[in-house]
């Protein structure tokens, strides 16, 4: 038992679990034909069948049952404000499975020259009264019952009265903001708190204009729009829900990382001494002091940034994203690539922090300009 827990604690260190998730993710939700072929070869699509669903759910329930034998895990899970996120984890697993199952079934029908299931259903027209109105009525009643039961069983939490001089330790936002809170660890507030949320909103609004694929509207499908689904799932599952889960389950006192079964020790010591890219360039590699001139000091960071946002889009347009560029055209491609590079900078920076303790690529605290 203890060895299993210890193993899970070790695996849940971000520098281990994150690469594992990344590696597995693109086989489960393949964005390209080649990965799709690999997915089929490995039989991963079987997840999206009845049996796969049962296995998925049994696994999830088992994991939670096992977790509940541990007092520390139980404490996190049963905190009233965390109950919705636990519920959401189950709902997400269910709905990902549910939508992917329908998508793969429709894919099979289309591959055989047929039409998606929804097209068969749509041939028949029905009256909204009573068929839809009754479904809605039942849904409302069930929802009300759920809310009342939930409210009777769980008291709404209320913490200590506000005290401006004592921050709770750890000081966590409600679960739906923990993804943002996690970003704040890796980027300065003007990026994580202002720029990124703006980019997320703009990026989401831009989806219909960037996804020029005319197929796959109005029915579940995967094969016809695998790139779009894969990218969306990456943001939705990995960069949003996974970060929320990390914030809920793996962050403890002093915002240190803790395994799910590791007791929250306030005095856990973790050497997190940060260095900036400029320190690395001048002090470690060139063995000299930092230059006085700010621009000269940060030249390495500026070059990296110039390459990342200036040269990389062009290089990608000629190589990996050649087809994509041809399909989207220059304007759409530029918007897409900027959004993509901005968002990918988050996992990149997370890695740099975990593995090399890099804090800033460009550090100009004199003007609050740190990247």
């Amino acid at each position, binding site marked *: 038992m203890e060895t299993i827990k210890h193993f899970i604690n070790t695996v849940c260190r971000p520098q281990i679990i994150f690469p594992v998730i990344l590696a597995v993710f693109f086989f489960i939700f393949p964005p390209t034909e080649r990965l799709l072929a690999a997915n089929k070869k490995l039989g991963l699509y079987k997840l999206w069948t009845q049996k796969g669903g049962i296995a998925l759910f049994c696994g999830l329930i088992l994991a939670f049952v096992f977790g509940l034998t541990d007092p520390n895990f139980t404490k996190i899970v049963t905190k009233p404000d965390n109950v919705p996120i636990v519920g959401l984890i189950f709902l997400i697993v269910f709905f990902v499975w549910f939508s992917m199952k329908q998508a793969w079934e429709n894919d099979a029908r289309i591959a055989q020259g047929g039409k998606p299931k929804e097209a068969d259903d749509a041939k028949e027209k029905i009256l909204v009264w009573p068929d839809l109105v009754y479904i809605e009525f039942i849904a409302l009643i069930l929802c009300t019952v759920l809310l009342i039961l939930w409210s009777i069983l769980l008291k709404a939490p209320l913490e200590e009265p506000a005290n401006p001089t004592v921050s709770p330790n750890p000081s966590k936002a409600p679960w739906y903001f923990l993804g943002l809170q996690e970003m704040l660890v890796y980027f300065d507030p003007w990026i994580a708190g202002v720029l990124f949320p703006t980019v997320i909103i703009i990026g989401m609004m831009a989806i219909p204009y960037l996804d020029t694929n005319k197929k796959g509207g109005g029915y579940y499908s995967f094969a016809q729009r695998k790139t779009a689904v894969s990218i969306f799932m990456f943001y939705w599952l990995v960069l949003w829900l996974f970060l929320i889960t990390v914030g809920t389950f793996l962050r403890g006192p002093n*915002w240190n990382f803790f395994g799910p079964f590791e007791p929250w020790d306030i005095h856990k010591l973790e050497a997190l001494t*940060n260095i900036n890219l400029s320190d690395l360039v001048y002090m470690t590699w060139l063995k000299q002091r930092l230059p006085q001139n700010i621009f000269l000091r940060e030249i390495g960071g500026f070059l990296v940034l110039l390459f990342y946002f200036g040269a990389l889009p062009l290089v990608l347009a000629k190589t990996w994203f050649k087809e994509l560029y041809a399909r989207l055209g220059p304007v759409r491609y530029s918007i897409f690539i900027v959004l993509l590079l901005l968002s990918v900078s988050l996992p990149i920076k997370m890695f740099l922090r975990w593995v090399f303790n890099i804090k800033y690529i460009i550090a100009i605290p004199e003007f609050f300009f740190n990247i």
Partner: protein
Amino acid sequence: MTQEKKSDTSSGKPSAVVSPVEQHSLDRRSFIKWLAIGWTAFAAVVAGYGSLLLRYLFPNVLFEPKQSFRAGNPDEYEVGKVSERFKDQYGTWIVRDLEKIYALSTFCTHLGCTPNWLESEAKFKCPCHGSGFYKTGINFEGPAPRPLERFKIILDDEGQIVVDKTKKFQQEKGEWNDPESYITV
């Protein structure tokens, strides 16, 4: 408007001396002029009201806690210790090292939480996002972008320490050498 359109099509080709055309084009010019004036005036009024509305969000009178306080005699502070006496009431740590006494703000430079002083690890550690600061206030771990700020600290005529929170000294701007940012003891 429709007439304007018509004249537009009729005057499409440049003609030599036909006066009506000239008159028409003059009309159009003045029309555009008035249109521009009208829209500029409209935009100016909207911008004016907009900025007044924005100004409305900034109150003129503030009710703020007291910004300066007396902190006793320098002898009351042990060398090498961080005093938390004025943390709760005034958000200030008073630190004494071998040569001087300085007043550190308890406001984390990341997002304003209050860090905890961990005596055994000799650091300030912020519970919100994990920033860490040395006893001097210099940031060394976590996301805080710059060191903690120091407040103005002086000795009054009776030899008492007075901390004035309205004046701040930031290390990254080289202000910690300012004689008002510490007391020599």
